[in-house]
């Protein structure tokens, strides 16, 4: 599905900025400890974080056997509760990319690289809203050098 190039990055980028800061608020308030697997991380995102900030709990499915691709299935998307259908001429808008950006920004702050995209969207006629998270190879923890 093609989207106007200038629109797609914008929401994701805004979401990324939100996510990098939101993660500290989340960690400060939820007292979750270190996770030991990608599925644990995805469960916490779905059951603790989404619940805390959006009041919904998406269900989690794992999409591949190497256990690094997951989907969050949202039966209710609070961001679009009052949207019946996308305005004419804007049918390619995917402003819920904000959520994908937030998740990606938050994961990056805890040193986890991930690709987060919308796989299905109710607004576009799919049956459910589905966010896909693909964990990429963990970045080596760089030894940070003091800036002189």
């Amino acid at each position, binding site marked *: 599905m093609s989207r106007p190039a200038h629109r797609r990055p914008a929401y994701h980028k805004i979401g990324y900025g939100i996510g990098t800061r939101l993660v500290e608020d989340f*960690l400060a308030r939820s007292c979750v400890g270190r996770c030991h697997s990608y599925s644990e991380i995805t469960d916490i995102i779905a059951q603790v974080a989404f619940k805390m900030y959006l009041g919904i709990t998406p269900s989690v499915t794992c999409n591949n056997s190497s256990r690094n691709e997951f989907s969050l299935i949202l039966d209710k998307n609070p961001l679009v509760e009052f949207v019946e259908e996308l305005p004419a001429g804007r049918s390619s808008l995917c402003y819920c990319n904000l959520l994908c950006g937030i998740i990606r920004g938050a994961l990056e702050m805890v040193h986890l690289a991930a690709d987060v995209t919308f796989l299905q969207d109710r607004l576009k006629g799919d049956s459910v809203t589905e966010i896909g998270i693909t964990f990429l190879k963990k970045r080596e923890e760089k030894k940070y050098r*003091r*800036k002189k």
Partner: protein
Amino acid sequence: MAIFSVYVVNKAGDLIYQLDSYSPRAEAEKTFSYPLDLLLKLHDERVLVAFGQRDGIRVGHAVLAINGMDGNGKLSPEQGSSGIEMLETDTFKLHCYQTLTGIKFVVLADPRQAGIDSLLRKIYEIYSDFALKNPFYSLEMPIRCELFDQNLKLALEVAEKAGTFGPGS
């Protein structure tokens, strides 16, 4: 004041916030950094500072405990250690809380002051509320947010009142 200083260190190791409450006993203000600039040696079964001077910790100061273990505990963050959480000396206790994102909150307090762990968590909340939600604050930069200062001082007062008579943490 029983809490001498609060420091916030970012991921790269730069000091982004500092709050000092001076009192006659607070000679030993220590900046938290690794590797330590002090040379420690074993003398008479105590670990003493043999060489090096850092912000008030001078030659002759004794290290009482690290992370709650006696002076023979590991100092190095390598080999499975997660870094200093608490450093005890005869004049102060240094507490450090490292978040999963790499920010470190360091508090220097009187050794008898209790409730520092919950104070560190509270400082983390204050940081996320008043520094991160400030749109003019850039991540990893020095914190210059008035609300952060005010709320931090408030939290320190509350912690001091609550903790002075409790058991040492």
